[in-house]
């Protein structure tokens, strides 16, 4: 069942669940951040509409810099603006920023400790028809390896908006990973979001029979013996997901639950700094983990989770993600299935992880 404390979208399992673009959530968050703080400026490398900076450009024309197709300059100019007290947001496709300009980001932003916020749009194979050149599936790896860099991968448009507003308030460099396609709205305005905090979105339900028995039991013995509180079973596998695939992870969890396999799903929106305590708590409780990300399995969120758990709570881990391959043209749905990141893949991985328990 959905974790009630997470206050998620009640329509999440419906066929007609609302859809939204994570990149548009970023664009809205940028406006909110800029309204709140005059220091926020925006720079874009010739993809203003595509990276959803258009509204910012119209509303704050003097605080917007059109860079042309020059991502290296994009990063280093932003560093210079931050040196003068600005909070620059820079955008391009993730493949080009932080892809092409990685070293400028490392030296002039991270090493130099300037609070530049890098928003990489069109991350993941779900970019679709543009093909492998434009599908950034290495961006989490290359950003999380940098000291000081905060890495956030929002699961839907609403979380992207919150992440952007939160990023503007930190004094560190931040990378925000954005997807192009419309994806299901998972969260609501009331869903908690905090940089560095993982959230449990799905947890084992109290089985119906246990609930009914408890009610009957309490009627029969009311006032005579202490009421027996029904308990949810312990989850036997934890699915840790990031980005839009959190939705698929929740769909997989629902199927597993129907099969009688109690499961928890964690939204790990902040890949760095890792919420280590939440991770080892989940690993210790479930004894098996599946990581789900639209990214290379090498070096991405799953690797970060493995680094943490190998040290603190070693349990079997299965990794859903792109398995050391490049992307190609296709529809987003086709590509997610082709590269093994669909709901059925997650279900199979969960069962495999459970079987691997000693």
């Amino acid at each position, binding site marked *: 069942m959905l974790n009630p404390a997470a206050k998620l979208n009640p329509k999440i399992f419906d066929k007609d669940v609302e859809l939204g673009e994570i990149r548009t959530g970023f664009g809205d968050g940028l406006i909110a951040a800029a309204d709140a703080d005059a220091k926020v*400026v925006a720079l874009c490398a010739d993809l203003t509409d595509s990276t959803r900076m258009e509204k910012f450009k119209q509303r704050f024309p*003097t*605080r917007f*810099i059109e*860079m*042309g197709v*020059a991502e*290296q*300059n994009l*990063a*280093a*100019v*932003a*560093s*210079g*603006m*931050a*040196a*003068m*007290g*600005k909070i*620059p947001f820079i955008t391009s496709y993730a493949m080009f920023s932080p892809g092409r300009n990685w*070293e*400028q980001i490392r*030296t*002039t932003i991270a*090493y*130099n*400790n300037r609070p530049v916020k890098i928003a990489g749009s069109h991350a993941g194979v779900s970019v679709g028809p543009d093909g492998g050149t434009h599908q950034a599936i290495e961006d989490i790896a290359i950003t999380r390896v940098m000291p000081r860099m905060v890495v956030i991968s929002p699961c839907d448009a609403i979380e992207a908006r919150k992440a952007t507003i939160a990023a503007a308030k930190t004094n560190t460099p931040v990378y925000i990973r954005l997807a192009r396609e419309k994806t299901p709205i998972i969260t609501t305005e009331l869903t908690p979001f905090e940089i560095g905090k993982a959230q449990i979105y799905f947890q084992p339900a109290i089985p119906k029979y246990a609930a009914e028995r408890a009610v009957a039991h309490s009627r029969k013995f009311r006032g005579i013996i202490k009421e027996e509180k029904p308990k949810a079973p312990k989850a036997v596998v934890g699915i840790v997901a990031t980005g839009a695939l959190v939705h698929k992870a929740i769909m997989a969890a629902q199927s597993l639950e129907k099969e009688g396999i109690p499961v928890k799903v964690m939204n790990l929106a902040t890949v760095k700094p890792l919420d280590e305590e939440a991770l080892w708590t989940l690993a210790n409780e479930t004894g098996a983990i599946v990581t789900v990300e639209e990214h290379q399995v090498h070096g991405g969120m799953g690797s970060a989770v493995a680094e943490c758990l190998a040290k603190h709570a070693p349990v079997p881990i299965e990794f859903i993600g792109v398995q050391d391959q490049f992307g190609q043209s296709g529809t987003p749905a086709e590509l997610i299935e082709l590269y093994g990141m669909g709901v059925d893949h997650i279900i199979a991985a969960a069962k495999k992880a459970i079987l691997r328990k000693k």
Partner: protein
Amino acid sequence: MSLTDEQVKKLEKKAHDIRVSIIEMLIEAKSGHTAGPLDMADIFTYLYCPAGMKYDAKKPDWPERDRLVLSNGHICPVLYATMAHSGYFPMERLKTLRKLGSPLQGHPHREWLPALETSSGPLGCGLSQAVGMVLADRIDNGRTASRRIFALLGDGELDEGNNWEAAMLAGKEKLGPLIAIVDRNNIQIDGFTEDIMPLEPLADKWRAFGWHVTECDGHNFRDIDRAVGEARAVFDKPSVILARTIASKGVPEFERHFEWHGKPPTTPEEIAVARKALHN
């Protein structure tokens, strides 16, 4: 208002002292770069004199100060030495260059030495940062901002494409307060710039990007003063000063040799030659 004879003499003396410090730092460090720091000593001396930048060594974070972005970070011994000679920190600290825990990192890091405007080393991104500083200043203070942002570049590093991205943007945005100074010493690690990757016609390249270009003798204070004054007077374009310098200026035996780009004097003979040339 050009420099008086007395001012020039004072500057020449200070530049000489800075060169002595550079050589002593390099000898002590046993690694580092010789040619660029020595040939840029006069320009740095000028920038850190009353006619040069607006700065306050006792208040390095004074908000009104001009900014100096050193793009070719490997020539930092000249920056460190000039800062010490200008009162930013004690001279003894120069001997810690490149040593564990020293604020004088092998390539400059602004957190280790907070008086620095930026960290640098990997080539080709200083001009961009200077452009960003001018853009930010323009948002806050408009086009008539009096602050100047100086970007110091090597000629070899102009091989990096990032510079030309920055040059294009500065031209487009007509960044008058931006003054780039190129150390035109004609050498880079592997050889002479015109053999490795020809830059000429360098002035034409900058002009084509929308810049005001002036050249100067990088070892003549009156000419440096004239070029900087000219650049300051340009309102509607960024300016670049192509400063003709002699690599390793001050140690005749090392001068113009590209071999001295990236090494310090280490053998007793080299050390003797350098000291003899500078301690006369």
